[in-house]
């Protein structure tokens, strides 16, 4: 980005959707022309899909290896297993000692880490583009040759349990979110948390983790995404050289586990050590399946922006500033999911207002939106904000790689982003009203309430006895 050797205004580095964004924002950017270098992809003989996006702004690269293996692939009693397996991926292979993977990347001045979600597990490195071959070599090694040692596994389980305490158990709002999902879903595995239930973590065995790794860590269940200062053909060659040796495997059957239709409001209360109450409303909504035809997910994204994309959006304007029933309020929705979608509105009542008043106010606002729809300027503003955010995300190679990988994990190619601006701009006010009317309704709603326990009343919450002296 700073190299003077880059021709000025080198729009060639950008994809077509950038110019589209500019056009739709009413600017003259299109005049600078778009000879975009598209994101390119290739599938190796063993089924590994490789996706490459050139971004020559800096001599660095973001490399991410995504496995279609997340908490959605866990079974009863073994929750948290996908994430535990992620932790073990750093702790030794046939040729790499415990911790050597990260040390090798660090030696190159790189960063590495990983994350696990409901639908996937992703391993990522950022480093100088010239060192890409090294991380391919390391990733291919742990794709094929992970070695789990019992004593290392036992210690890592302690780390993971600390992570659960840190991430969820000592954060009442995080614990409430866990309860929301556990209540909104009954049959679908989204009901369990990615980190896993504590009692499952206490009872996971090394054999469970080895089995999870054997089942899912195959090249034909993975997508390699590279964004950066690279030449695609060379990336394909490197990928073939390092990953091509890993044989494809037959993947286990995946049951659809369709969530039965919800009929009637569900409610859950959770007592946590907090000062004030907190409220979450979750609604079952569609996600993007048919990238060509589905319009509802795009309308839901616009709805989310109408509700909370700025200070002037509905939730902050009506609930925080006008009626002052809420201290904070926001909405969230993700259209890229392997499983069913949940549109979530979260809010804290302002001091002196009850959580019941707040819930009534939110539902009243949703009702008004479903009845009266949204104004033309509200729609335009929400669309513009979504389109601008989409453009701003191109500032980061890591973010670009994350978005591509995420889409790939749920069955969409990077091309889905090429249509983002047009699909977002095509959403009408009537469609926004329609998705609110269809989906943000009582029968599809789960209400989760955090009930604060006063500091003087709460008992010290010690861990269960059997976790207290494990080592």
């Amino acid at each position, binding site marked *: *980005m700073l*190299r*003077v*050797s*880059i021709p000025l*205004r080198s729009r060639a580095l950008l994809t077509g959707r*950038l110019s589209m964004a500019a056009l739709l924002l*009413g600017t003259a*950017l299109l005049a600078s022309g778009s000879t975009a270098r598209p994101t390119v992809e290739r599938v190796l003989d063993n089924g590994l899909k490789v996706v490459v996006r050139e971004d020559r*702004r800096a*001599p*660095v690269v973001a490399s991410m290896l995504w496995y279609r293996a997340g908490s959605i692939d866990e079974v009863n009693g073994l929750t948290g297993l996908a994430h535990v397996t992620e932790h073990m991926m750093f702790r030794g292979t046939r040729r790499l000692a*415990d*911790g050597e993977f990260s*040390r090798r990347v*660090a*030696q190159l*001045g*790189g*960063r590495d*880490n*990983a*994350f696990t*979600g409901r639908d996937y597990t992703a391993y990522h490195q950022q*480093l*100088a583009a010239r060192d890409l071959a090294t991380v391919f070599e390391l990733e291919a090694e742990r794709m094929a040759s992970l070695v789990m040692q019992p004593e290392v596994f036992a*210690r890592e*389980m302690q*780390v*993971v349990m*600390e*992570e659960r*305490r*840190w*991430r969820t*158990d000592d954060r009442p709002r995080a614990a409430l979110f866990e309860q929301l999902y556990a209540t909104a879903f009954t049959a679908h595995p989204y009901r369990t*948390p*990615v980190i896993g239930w504590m009692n499952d973590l206490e009872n996971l065995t090394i054999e469970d983790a080895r089995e999870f790794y054997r089942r899912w860590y195959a090249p034909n269940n993975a997508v390699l995404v590279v964004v950066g200062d690279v030449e695609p053909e060379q990336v394909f060659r490197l990928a073939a050289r390092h990953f091509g040796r890993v044989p494809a495997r037959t993947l286990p059957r995946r049951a659809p586990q369709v969530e039965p239709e919800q009929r009637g409001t569900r409610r859950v209360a959770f007592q946590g050590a907090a000062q004030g109450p907190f409220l979450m409303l979750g609604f079952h909504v569609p996600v993007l399946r048919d990238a060509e035809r589905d319009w509802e997910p795009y309308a839901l994204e616009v709805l989310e922006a109408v509700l909370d*994309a*700025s*200070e*002037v959006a509905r939730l902050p304007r009506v609930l*925080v500033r006008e009626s*002052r029933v809420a*201290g904070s309020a926001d909405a969230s929705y993700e259209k890229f999911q392997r499983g069913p979608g949940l549109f979530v509105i979260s809010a804290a009542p302002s001091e002196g207002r009850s959580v019941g008043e707040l819930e009534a106010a939110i539902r009243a606002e949703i009702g008004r939106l479903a009845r009266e729809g949204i104004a033309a*300027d509200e729609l*335009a*503003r929400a669309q*513009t904000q979504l*389109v*601008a955010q989409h*453009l*701003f995300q191109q*500032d980061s190679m890591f973010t670009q790689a994350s978005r591509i990988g995420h889409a790939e994990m749920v069955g969409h190619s990077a091309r889905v982003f090429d249509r983002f601006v047009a699909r977002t701009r095509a959403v009408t006010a009537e469609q926004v009203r329609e998705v609110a009317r269809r989906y943000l309704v009582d029968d599809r709603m789960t209400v989760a309430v955090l009930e604060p326990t006063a*500091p003087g009343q*709460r008992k010290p919450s*010690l861990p269960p006895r059997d*976790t*207290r*002296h494990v080592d």
Partner: protein
Amino acid sequence: MWTDRPGVVPLLLRRMLLPLAFAAQAQAAGMAQVQTWTLDNGARVMFVESRALPILDVAVEFRAGSAFDPAERAGLAAMTQHLSRFGAGGLGEEDIARRLGEVGAQLSGRIDVDRAGFTLRTLATRPERTQALDMFARVVQQPDFPLPALERERTRIVTNLREEATRPAIVASRQFFAAAYGSHPYALRPLGDADGVRALTRDTIVDFRRRFYTGVSAVVSIVGDVSRAEAGEIARQVAGALPAGSVRPVPPAVPSLPAAQVRRVPHPSLQSHILLGMPAVSLSDPDYFALLVGNHVLGGGGFASRLTVEVRERRGFAYSVFSSLQPWLERGPFQVSLQTRRDQTDEALAVARSVLFEFLAKGPTEAELASARRNLVNGFPLRIDTNRELLDLVATIGFHDLPADWLAQWPKRVERVGREDVLRAFQRLDPQRLVTVVVGAADEPPPAPPLPHQQQPRLR
């Protein structure tokens, strides 16, 4: 939900590395340099032309952080910054938000102990940026501080402060800064406390604003798809109307701690939150480089650093464990931070202290040191590979008045850091003055005072 291993290089530390990284890369790759100039009112401008994306990032920051709060009005600096967007230049908060939203621009605020300021991200194309900069210029230069917004935000902030006061991490941080900084304003949380915020009036805010939001105190940073001439106009537009002011305010010097302190606070959390440390370093300190490289070995260097290996990898005591330096205008803190199951609090604390004392006594090995230097130098490009990071970088350069040659010398100074330098620099972290905070399990006896390092269990 995303579960991630926590970034073990703390954000603030990373921020401080940015200027350094930039210099080296700029030198090495013949990249465009930061261009700087000064407005008539004394505001310093930092500009990097970046043409690859049609994005413009602008920040205006002042020496107006919480270090300048009066003790009885903790939260004044934060409120002054926060409230500026809720009505400015004759426009109400809704007008401002609407006009920013119409062009997809994002306005955010920043407050820490030293700095208060605003950041704008907008499309760089002319119609969009013109409208966005118009709003930004009003927020930066002409806030109206309408009373209804003040009343509402005061209530919201007090509620938030009371809520966060229930969190063990916040309790631990408050205790640490109170112990490490005593009556120095760095002891206060930048967002203030409930009593201070409740007492804020419009007059105090207007007065604070008048004293601290001045040209001589301002740094304007611009990164993006505009020319030098356009950047000149933008700088004048967003900061040129500020009153010049007279002197740049400076926080008081941080006194040294007289003795070690141990604070244990009972809390019902499942984990104990542990903090160890003391005031340590400013960015202009000559030992900064030795501390930076040494800390990388000790606990700032990710999974290879000693604290992570000993506390997490070998013993499974914690998910997140690291050490950090925050080089503020005056001596910012060195901190070791970890969280562990409450019934093993003392064991984990003992290990962390052992690792720290061993390091203070013996320093890094040559191999560790070489590895840390290599990681810092080779990792430079990653610290400047987004415009956002660049903006933070140039803002920090400007804010700390770093001389250009200091930047150019940076890689050499990292390369030059030897074992003896680290040992000597870390002598300022005297175990006899160490602050220890434990929030969580408080029923156990306080840990024994530090032993001479020869008696510590050997860990490596």
